[in-house]
């Protein structure tokens, strides 16, 4: 009952979102001064050629008709054909999504592993030196221009000292493992390709860390705030008054409850991650959705931009659905009613 109450509105929202996003991007794509046909046929294309390309793209039809066709195709999972790569946008997205997901998951993992303990320590030792350090680190993370941080790290670790690779997912000369999940770290292990695994791991360290750093800041700040809230709750006082050990109070009693409001934030953090990923990928030449969409935007490849936007929005809604479900599981009050 409660589950459907949560899921159903979300699914309806999903429809809204897809439609809304489609309308918005579609409108924009028809407002732009650039002519997609000219993009395909080249700068000096003759009027005749342009006309032909336009016809092939369906651009000669009335806008409303174009939109209906687009939506119709969309419902069949067809996102159109990229003007730049001449491939179906859906195929492009399938190609690039795993790289982004892999980067995002690794970054999120790092961010959580560093951010949560830091936030907890910061709250427990509020106003102490640990807190000051943790807050400084967290504010640095939140305020860090990802693109610049990436550049600096590349300069230091790759250019100057050559400790870590600075671009791409795999080193030269290492064949890409066959694609199973699209996650190189997993695929290489599945196939026992330890060379590829090592290389993939090395390659993900810098971009993963850069992307993680900003999110770590956000997570630390959030955990600190909600820990502070929770730590002054009456039930913590009860736990202290009944002599429970400090570690138990902090981790079993306080952190647990502090995480509940943070779950929502985690959802938002995932959204931010996407934004961060776009920048990180461009810096680290990471062959993912970010690089894809930035290039698409720079070349005004609107089918690609629309496809990306729609997929990203769906992802966002789904993530939020998951977050809500997680929230529900974590909070007995919602779960049991």
């Amino acid at each position, binding site marked *: 009952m409660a589950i459907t109450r949560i899921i159903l509105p979300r699914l309806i929202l999903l429809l809204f979102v897809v439609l809304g996003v489609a309308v918005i991007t579609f409108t924009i794509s028809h407002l732009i001064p650039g002519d997609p046909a000219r993009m395909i046929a080249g700068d000096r294309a003759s009027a005749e050629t342009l006309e032909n390309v336009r016809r092939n793209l369906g651009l000669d039809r009335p806008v409303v008709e174009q939109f209906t066709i687009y939506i119709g195709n969309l419902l069949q999972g067809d996102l159109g054909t990229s003007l730049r790569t001449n491939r179906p946008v859906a195929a492009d997205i399938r190609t690039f999504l795993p790289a982004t997901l892999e980067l995002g998951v690794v970054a999120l993992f790092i961010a959580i592993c560093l951010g949560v303990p830091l936030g907890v320590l910061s709250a427990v030792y509020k106003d102490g030196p640990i807190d000051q350090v943790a807050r400084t680190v967290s504010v640095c993370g939140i305020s*860090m221009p990802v*693109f610049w941080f990436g550049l600096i790290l590349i300069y230091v670790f790759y250019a100057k000292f050559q400790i870590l690779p600075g671009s791409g997912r795999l080193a030269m000369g290492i064949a890409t493992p066959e694609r199973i999940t699209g996650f190189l770290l997993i695929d290489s292990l599945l196939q026992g390709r330890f060379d590829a695994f090592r290389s993939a791991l090395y390659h993900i360290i810098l971009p993963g860390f850069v992307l993680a750093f900003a999110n770590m800041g956000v997570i630390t700040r959030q955990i600190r705030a909600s820990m502070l809230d929770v730590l002054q709750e009456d039930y913590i006082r009860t736990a202290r008054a009944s002599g429970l050990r400090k570690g138990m109070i902090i981790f079993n009693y306080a952190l647990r409850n502090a995480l509940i409001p943070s779950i929502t934030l985690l959802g938002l953090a995932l959204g931010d991650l996407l934004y961060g990923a776009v920048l990180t990928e461009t810096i680290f030449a990471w062959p993912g959705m970010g690089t894809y969409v930035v290039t698409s935007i720079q070349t005004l490849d609107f089918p690609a931009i629309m496809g990306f*936007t729609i997929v990203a929005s769906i992802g966002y809604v789904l993530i939020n659905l998951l977050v809500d479900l997680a929230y529900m599981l974590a909070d007995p009050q919602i779960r049991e009613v």
Partner: protein
Amino acid sequence: MRRTKSFSERLRYFWYLSRRSPLTLVGVAIIVLVLVMIVAAPVIAPYNPDKVSLTARLLPPSAAHWFGTDEVGRDLFSRVIFGARASCGAAFMIVLISMSVGVLIGCFSGVVGGRVDTAIMRLMDVVLALPALVLAMALAAALGPSLFNSMLAVAIVRIPAYVRLARGQTLSLREQVFVKASRTFGASPFYILRWHILPNAMSPIIVQATLDLGGVVLIAAALSFIGLGAQPPTAEWGALVSSGRSYMLDQWWYATFPGLAILITAMGCNLVGDGIRDMLDPRLRGR
């Protein structure tokens, strides 16, 4: 118990709170610095930021050029100083626009309630689900890359956050006893909005806006970095980092200083935002 604390007392109180959190003071210092940069750029900057000098290309930092020069010999220190105007001005406008629009919509939605509220919130859900940067990029791309267009895009994308915040405030304030009391006196929704909800909802919104400012400085810079924001030859931090990027190996200073400026400014906003929030938090407030 005097009615209002005197200015010096307020100052003393602020100092008292800041001593407990030196980071806030750092933030205030940064903001002041940036404001000075914005206001007094022509006085501070040693050179005309747009003055090309093909003979002084890519000079390393020196007494004459503190941050070195760029590929057409412009003084980077001056460009960073002037960049504050574009970068921070844009961020400020974005926050101002999204905050005012968002607060208006949010309060309206919360007060009116019912179907209008539902419709507005669904719309906001859609906008919220749009990948912010991408919409910004798409709009910027569509309307042509310019700082103004990206600003507009970012502002639009950030509206829902304020709508939600303001609506949440409105809804919770609506349940407050003093608002109920006002209703029993026959107050109209507009009266309640004007006298009770807006004034009381403002502080969390201001905090949010301050924190947002830090984030938006980053986004504006990021857009310029990707090439969708401020267009060269405008001096803007993100754009400077972007052009400095290809010189990273031999001319490290080019990208480093404008990036630092972004980092420090965003930090300033975040620190001050955190500080204000702590001060408004009754839990942490000294008596």
